[in-house]
């Protein structure tokens, strides 16, 4: 027999569980909002200005410089390295200036470096990843070896990024002798997101109806013609969707690039090379590594905090911009076809 009191108890459990789930969801929202607002508010003090053109152009277009802070005739001066030297030419008297590394100028080389790392590593990951996915979904038969291969790919996804960093350092930087370079970073980051790209690409390829393949083969097309003309184009939107997530990951990781391609400071821009081949074998500055350096390698104060938050905000916007570009690309592809 069912006790009569169970009715109120049941409704209590109902309400309790409902609120638990609801609060857990709201908690996530609150955390995300806090992080974004904190970065947006503190970062915008660096990135934006209150006078025209309302954007701190210097911050976006100049390399980082050392900041000199000193008192002069009762006034607090904050000058960048270059400005400070010019100022000293006109004012001969010695001043007691505090120097703070990286806190003047901007982060232009880091933006460029991150963009180059993302583009290069996505090309590496997409070329290898799509090829592997085509092999797995279109050519391979379900043998024991292929099943083993799939498990290996899944395991690769679970490898921590610092391990990828050390692997890239050992293989590309030292063994291949590429030194700390863009190309070493491309391959390290590319390998890191390869499992995600392969898995998602394979799923997108499998989602293309079998009838399209059979229809094409029945007309006397070869397997490769079928894949190129009648499978891959329809799988591309799905593959791009997965690569958008890959972009965010590639742009954000610090560990894989800190040994393989990131410089804390570099004066030349990536295109200032003597030979075009040198382009691939140069280290670059990168946004996540810059944040890491500014917030852990130098003494902290209010000036470094400005750079940290400014860089973080620019970083978020850069990732958003790249992701947006791939979404636009995907939508344009998707509009061309539908079934």
């Amino acid at each position: 027999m069912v006790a009569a009191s169970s009715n109120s108890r049941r409704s209590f459990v109902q309400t309790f569980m409902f609120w638990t789930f609801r609060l857990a969801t709201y908690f996530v929202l609150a955390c995300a909002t806090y992080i974004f607002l904190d970065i947006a508010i503190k970062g915008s003090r660096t990135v934006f200005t209150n006078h025209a053109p309302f954007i701190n152009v210097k911050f976006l277009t100049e390399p980082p410089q050392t900041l000199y802070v000193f008192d002069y005739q009762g006034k607090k001066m904050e000058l960048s390295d270059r400005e400070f030297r010019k100022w000293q030419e006109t004012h001969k008297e010695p001043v007691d200036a505090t120097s703070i590394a990286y806190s003047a100028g901007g982060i232009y080389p880091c933006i460029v470096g991150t963009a180059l790392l993302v583009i290069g590593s996505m090309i590496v990951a997409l070329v290898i990843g799509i090829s592997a996915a085509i092999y797995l979904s279109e050519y391979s038969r379900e043998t024991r070896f292929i099943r083993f291969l799939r498990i290996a790919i899944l395991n690769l996804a679970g490898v921590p990024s610092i391990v990828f960093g050390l692997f890239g350092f050992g293989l590309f930087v030292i063994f291949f002798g590429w030194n700390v370079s863009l190309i070493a970073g491309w391959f390290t980051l590319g390998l890191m997101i390869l499992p995600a790209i392969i898995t998602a690409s394979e799923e997108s390829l499998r989602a293309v109806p079998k009838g399209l393949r059979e229809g094409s083969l029945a007309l006397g097309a070869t397997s490769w013609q079928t894949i190129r003309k009648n499978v891959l184009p329809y799988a591309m939107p799905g593959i791009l969707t997965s690569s958008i997530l890959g972009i965010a990951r590639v742009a954000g990781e610090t560990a894989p690039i800190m040994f393989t391609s990131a410089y804390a400071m570099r004066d030349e821009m990536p295109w200032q090379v003597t030979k075009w081949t040198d382009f691939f074998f140069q280290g670059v500055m990168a946004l996540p590594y810059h944040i890491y350096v500014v917030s852990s390698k130098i003494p902290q104060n209010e000036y470094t905090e400005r750079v940290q938050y400014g860089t973080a905000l620019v970083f978020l916007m850069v990732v958003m911009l790249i992701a947006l570009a791939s979404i636009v690309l995907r939508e344009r592809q998707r509009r061309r076809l539908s079934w």
Partner: protein
Amino acid sequence: MVSVMEPPQTVRPQTPPEPLGSPANQTEKLQVMIDVHEVDFTYGDNKVLHNISLQMPARAVTAFIGPSGCGKTTLLRCINRMNDLVDGSRISRGAIHLDGVDINSPGLDVVDLRRRVGMVFQKSNPFPKSIYENIAYGLRVAGVKKRSLIDEAVEKSLRSAALWDEVKDRLETNAYGLSGGQQQRLCIARALAVEPEVVLMDEPCSALDPIATAKIEELIQALKTQYTIVIVTHNMQQAGRISDFTAFFYLGKLIEFGPTVKIFTNPGEKQTEDYITGRFG
């Protein structure tokens, strides 16, 4: 128009159009296009076709009938080696000859075979491209580049599939905008564009309404003057209306094969008669 309950004796007395003699004389007179000889077919350890032998004449319609799972589609897909795509499936015994050539001989190019043996699928599968590009696809993969040749072939095959008048003003629109029946005729036109010798049809009307079905049946009648047609159908009345020869399959075995008139009016086997009169299946 199509009444399932109709007794088989009244199905279109005018089919096939030419008078038929005894089945043996008839097969001798006609040129054999597809010769299936003692074929066994297995999926893994599961044998689905048992010792099938039949000779399909050129420029005639051969229908495969039988209940679901009897192996008729499997046999059809052996003729253009579509079963190559299915892991673990193979012809374990016997041979299929197309116009005297063993289609499973190691030297044979399967791409070449599929150009000679076109196929229309149960579920119409136009490519998500324009109508024009759908037809041009087979030519393009064969390496035809000349625009005028492709234009010509597109018009010709759409005309032979009786679709030209309906689509000539919208060749550049997506094929998915066509109705189900039109899509299936587009698939037929696409198969015809590469000028095959044989057209295999796997239940081409199973998803279509009676009017679209009638159009495709008319089309098949018109096409058999040029092509050898093999059609799998669930619909016995359809087999009676359009085919010259009928093969009845049951549980992976060929029970009876002969001129359609004979199969439908005077079947030699009890099982055939039971199936045709609707007693099972």
